[in-house]
C-alpha cells in the first residue's frame, strides 16, 4: 500500500466527514429543533412587558445593588449587592461573577478542606441572617437544607429544593404581606417532579416563582 495515496484518502474522508457531520448534521438538528420545539431550542426565554429578563433554565442572582448616597456602591469594579428579601434566592454559585451564564465554572471545593468548611459555614450564616427572623422558632445550622449551603455544580442551578423554598417562603410572605398558604401554593405550582416519577429530585424554579410573585403583588 502506498502511504501517500492512503494519506490522501484519509484527508478526503475527513473533509467529507466535516461537511456531513460538522455542518449538515447540526443544521438538520437545528431545523428540526426550531420547527418542533422552537421555544426550547432558543433557551426558554422569559419576557416581562416585552423585556427579556431571563431563561427558565438558567438560575440568576436575586440580589440588588447596594446604594450609598444615591449611587451604586462599587467594589473592585463590580457593584456591591445584597440578597433582595422580596425574592426567593438561588443556590450558592462558584461562577464568577455570580450566575454569569456565559462563563460557567465549578467551585471545586474539596470534601476534606478547611476552605470548604468556611465557605459552607459562611453560606449557612448568610441564609440564617436572611431568613432566621421570619422562621417560626428561628433557624439553626442543623435546619438549613444542604442545597442552600452547598455550591451548585453549574453555578447557574435554576432550582432549589422544596425544603429550601418552604423556609424562604416565611420571609417572602412576610415582606410581601402575603399569606404563607398563598406563597406555598405558588411553590407547589413551580415545582417540577422527578423524571418519569423516579429520576432526579423535585426542584422549584426560582425565576418562575419570583416572577409569579411579582405578578401577584407588583414589584414592591
Amino acid at each position, binding site marked *: 500500500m502506498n*502511504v501517500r495515496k492512503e494519506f490522501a484518502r484519509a484527508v478526503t474522508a475527513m473533509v467529507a466527514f466535516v461537511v456531513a457531520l460538522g*455542518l449538515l448534521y447540526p443544521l438538520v438538528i437545528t431545523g428540526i429543533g426550531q420547527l418542533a420545539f422552537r421555544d426550547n431550542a432558543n433557551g426558554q426565554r422569559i419576557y416581562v412587558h416585552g423585556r427579556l429578563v*431571563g431563561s427558565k*433554565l438558567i438560575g440568576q442572582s436575586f440580589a440588588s445593588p447596594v446604594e450609598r448616597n444615591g449611587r451604586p456602591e462599587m467594589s473592585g469594579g463590580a457593584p456591591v449587592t445584597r440578597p433582595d428579601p422580596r425574592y426567593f434566592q438561588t443556590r450558592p454559585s462558584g461562577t464568577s461573577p455570580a450566575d454569569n451564564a456565559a462563563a460557567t465554572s465549578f467551585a471545586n471545593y474539596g470534601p476534606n478542606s478547611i476552605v470548604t468548611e468556611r465557605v459552607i459555614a459562611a453560606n449557612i450564616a448568610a441564609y440564617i441572617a436572611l431568613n432566621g427572623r421570619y422562621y417560626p422558632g428561628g433557624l439553626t445550622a442543623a435546619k438549613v437544607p444542604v442545597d442552600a449551603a452547598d455550591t451548585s455544580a453549574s453555578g447557574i442551578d435554576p432550582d432549589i429544593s422544596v425544603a429550601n423554598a418552604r423556609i424562604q417562603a416565611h420571609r417572602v410572605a412576610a415582606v410581601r404581606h402575603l399569606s404563607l398558604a398563598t406563597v406555598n401554593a405558588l411553590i407547589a405550582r413551580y415545582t417540577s417532579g422527578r423524571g418519569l416519577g423516579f429520576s432526579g429530585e423535585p426542584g422549584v424554579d426560582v425565576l418562575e416563582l*419570583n416572577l409569579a410573585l411579582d405578578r401577584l403583588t407588583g414589584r414592591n
Partner: protein
Amino acid sequence: MTLSGWGTIAAFAVSLTLLALPLGRYMAAVYTGQWTVLEPVMRHPERWLYRLLRVDPHRGQDWRSYARSLILFSLAGWLILYLVLRSQGLWNFTGLNPMRFASAPWNVTFNTASSFVTNTNWQYYSGETTLSYFSQMAGLTVQNFVSAAVGIVVAVALIRGIAKRVTDRDAAEANSIGNFYGDLVRTILYVLLPISTVVGIVLIWQGSIQNFSPYLSFTGVTHLAQRIAMGPVASQEAIKLLGTNGGGFFNTNSAHPFENPTGLSNFVEMLTVLIIPAALVFTYGRMVGNRRQGYAIYTTMMVMFLGAVIVCYVAEAHGSPAQHAAGLHTAAIAGSSGGNMEGKEQRFGIAGSALFNVVTTVTSCGAVNSAIESFTGIGGAVPFANLSASEVIFGGVGSGLYSILLYVLLAVFIGGLMVGRTPEYIGKKIEAREIKLVALGILITPLAALLSTALATASRAGRASIDTAVAHGPQAFSETLYAYLSQANNNGSSFAGYTGYVGHVGNGAGSHGITFADLLGGMTMLFARYAPILFALAVAGTLVSKRVSPAGLGTMRTDNGTFVVLLIGVILLVGALTFFPALLLGPIVQGLTGHLYPGAGR
C-alpha cells in the same frame, strides 16, 4: 439515601440491558454485512462515500494494513482539527462566531486536538469563552463521531480475529480482519448518526438549546447585568455522550442546564453513554457464534458497575467532613435529598449525580453532571477505581470491548496455568506471542498514567497546574493523579481545579496555556490511545489465522460463573497492584481520616 434513588439505579440497569440486547443484534448484522432496517436510507450515502474514497469495502486487510489506514486517518483528523481550532477567526464569515472569539494558544490547542482525536475530550479550555460555534461543530462534533467510530472498528476487527474459523480460509482473505474504511463508514452511517439524531431531538424536547444566536445580554429581575451563552448544543451533546466522548459544549459540561435540562434528560443521557459499549458485548457473543460468551462478559461488567454505583451513592448520601464540620445535617428530610450536594445540581440530586459519575467514568466518556473534585473521599475514590480498572467495565465505545478482551485472554492464560492445560479461547490456542502482546497492551495505560503523574508531581512546571486556592495535601495530589489517569485512559473527566490554561474563564485577558501540562497531557493521550490499539490489532492479526481445535473435556469454559469470578479477580488484581499505592496518597487518605486540610482560599 432514598427509595427513588435506589429505584433510579435499578431502573437504569434494567433499561440498559433491554435496550442493549436488540442493538447488539443489530450491530452484529451491520458488521457481518447483512441487511438492516436502515439499508434503504443509508445505502446511497454509503456507496457514494466508497466511490469518493475509492475503497472496496469487501476487500479485506491484514492487521498491518488495517492499522496503517487507521493511523493515517487519525493523523489527518488531528491535523484538520488543529487547523480548524487555530484558524478560528478565519471562519467568521460563516456567521458561526457571533462572539468573535480568537483561537486558543498553540499549546492548549495541541492538547485539545490530541484530546478529541483520541476520544478523550479532556478540556483545558472552557467552551463558552473560547470556541466559536464553527469550531464546536466542524472541529469537535466531527471528531466526536469519527474518534468513536475508530474505537468501534478496532473492537470489530478484534472480534473477527477471534471469531474467524479455519474453514473460511482462502489464500487472499486468510489474514483479513476486515476493511477499515468499510467498517468506519458503516459505523458512522448505520450506528452513530441515526442514534445521535434521535437523542439530539429528545434532548431539545427536554429543553436543550439548538440555535446560532449571539449570547444574550440583558438586565435581570433585580436589574443586575446578566449574560447567557447560546449555541448548537443538542446536536453536539448527543454524540458527545453516544460516542463516550464527554467534551462539554459549556465549561460545566452536563451540569449546565442547557446540556442536561431535567431529571429525565439525565436518565436518557446516562443510557446514551452506556448503550453502545453494552450492546457491543452482545454483538461479540453473536459474532463468535456463542451468545453465552457475551453474556459472561456482560455479567462481569454489570457486577463491577453496580458495585461502584452502590459505594458511590452511599458515600455521597452520607455527606462530607467539611459539611459536618460546618454544622450541616446531611440526612434526607422531607423536601430535600440531603447528602453531599456540594458541586451537585438540585434536579439530579445525589442518586442522579452518583450514577452519572459512575456511568461516565467506567466508560471513557468523562462527561460530568457534578463536580468530581467535590465528591467525598470514598465517593471520589470510585471514579479513581474505575479509571484504574483501565476502562474495561463497559469502557469506551469499542475500546471497552477490545480492552476487556485483552483481560479475558489474560484470565484464560492464568486459568490455563492453574489447571495445567494449554490455554485456549473459543477454540484458538493462546500462546506466548499472544500473551506478550496482551501484557503489553494492558500495561501501557497504567504506565503512561503513573509516569506522567510522577513527572507532574516532581516538577515545578507540573505543580503549576494545581488549584492552590482550594487544593492542598492529598487533594492536590488527587488533582494531579486524576488528570493523568483520566488522560491516559482517554476518559476526559477531571478534578476541575487542575488547569493547563490560566485565566481563560471570563474575558480572557492575560490568559495563557501551561505548556508543560498541555504537552505532557496531549502526548499521554496519544500514546495511551494508539499503543493499545496497535496491540489489540496485532492480537487480532495473530489469532485470525489460527486453526480451531474442538473443545474437549480439558477445555476451560469461558461462558460460566466461574470464569466471571476469575475475570473480575484478574481485573481487580491488575488494577489494584498498579494503582493502590498512588490512590492511598489521595482519595483514600481523605476518605478514611476525615481530616480537614488548609488551602489558600479564593
